[in-house]
């Protein structure tokens, strides 16, 4: 492995400070993106959707739980599956205590196409308490573009896809302001962020790392948190 040079603390500090200047530039650029995001137009939701939730039938407005904004993660869980998507499961593991979002008048909910009974069982298995609703009796998933018209039995999670939608409401009027997926969702997860800070990175094949670094395919190394066979496995060893 072609590892970086070993230097004195002073030399390291100089190199680290030089990088810090670039990191700060990126931080400002991210702030500018967020400012642009806040100015996106929004789309009124003109259709009534009904979800099955822990407390019975719920409309989209109910998912706000009385708060002004709603972050809604489209969790891949096909109606014919018994366990939700492993990547979505890792994402949910990374969502912190919701009290901090609630403090900013923002709720968080998961929505999947699987029927509520399957969601309830899987949620219990994973030890999550985050509100999770089924859209199995509704067009919601298809309308927002995360589900095929009909479940596809030969595709992972029946062809469901994932992403984060953002909604806000004014009285009974509900608006969708944002949607992101793929690397946009990775940016929301602390596991990816932490790995980006380590010398070895995410250890995924697409990364530009020096020759000899351990690398495996993205989207394949993670497991549901109760399915890691060798939690101590170290690809660098």
């Amino acid at each position, binding site marked *: 492995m072609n590892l970086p040079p070993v230097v004195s603390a002073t030399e390291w500090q100089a190199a680290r400070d030089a990088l810090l200047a*670039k990191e700060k530039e990126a931080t400002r650029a991210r702030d500018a993106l967020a400012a642009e995001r806040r100015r996106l137009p929004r789309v009124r939701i003109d259709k009534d959707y009904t979800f099955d939730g822990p407390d019975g039938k719920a409309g989209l407005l109910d998912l706000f739980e009385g708060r002004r904004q709603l972050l809604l993660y489209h969790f891949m869980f096909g109606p014919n599956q018994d366990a939700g998507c492993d990547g979505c499961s890792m994402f949910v593991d*990374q969502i*912190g205590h919701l009290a901090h979002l609630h403090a900013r008048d923002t709720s968080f909910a998961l929505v999947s196409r699987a029927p509520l009974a399957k969601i309830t069982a899987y949620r219990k298995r994973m*030890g999550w308490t985050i509100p999770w609703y089924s859209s199995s009796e509704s067009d919601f998933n298809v309308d927002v573009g995360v589900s095929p018209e009909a479940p596809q039995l030969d595709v992972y999670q029946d062809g469901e896809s994932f992403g984060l939608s953002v909604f806000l409401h004014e009285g009974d009027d509900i608006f969708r302001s944002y949607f992101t997926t793929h690397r946009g969702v990775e940016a929301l997860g602390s596991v990816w962020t932490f790995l980006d800070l*380590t010398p*070895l*990175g995410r250890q995924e094949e697409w990364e530009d790392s020096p020759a000899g670094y351990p690398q495996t395919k993205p989207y394949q*190394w993670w497991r549901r948190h109760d399915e890691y066979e060798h939690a101590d496995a170290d690809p660098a060893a």
Partner: protein
Amino acid sequence: MTEHKVGTREEWLAARTALLADEKEFTHRSDELARKRQALPWVPIGKDYSFEAEDGTKTLADLFDGRSQLLVYHFMFGPTVEGWPDAGCPGCSYTADSLDGAAVHLPPRGVTFVAVSRAPLENLLAAPTPSTPPGSCSTALQGAAATTPRGGRADTTTTND
């Protein structure tokens, strides 16, 4: 509050797609930063430190727990920090609320994650257990109290604000 534009789905999609281009540019910029970060030089740690953990006294090497990489969260918990002696820093607690569930996914990449605080171990263990984060599994962050050096900070720290 100023009137915010309400558009058709097509208008929103056009605006959102334009923003997506900027977001992707930022993603690639972040990838490039990570690459530069990985190329940073390393500093050998030439001093022995010992830490008090729930299962005894540990060296810095012990904190790696057999893996090749270690992330240490410097959790503010000590006599000069808000909440002392019963609680750690509210801001660090806010950060740590999202770590319990994430930490289980780091060992498969050869990474161990621990928190280190200046407070004596008895204060770390006595602090009320944070309520279980909604998105978390049962794996708790392992905490360790830094017992040496007594005077001053072990490393120069940098902030990324």
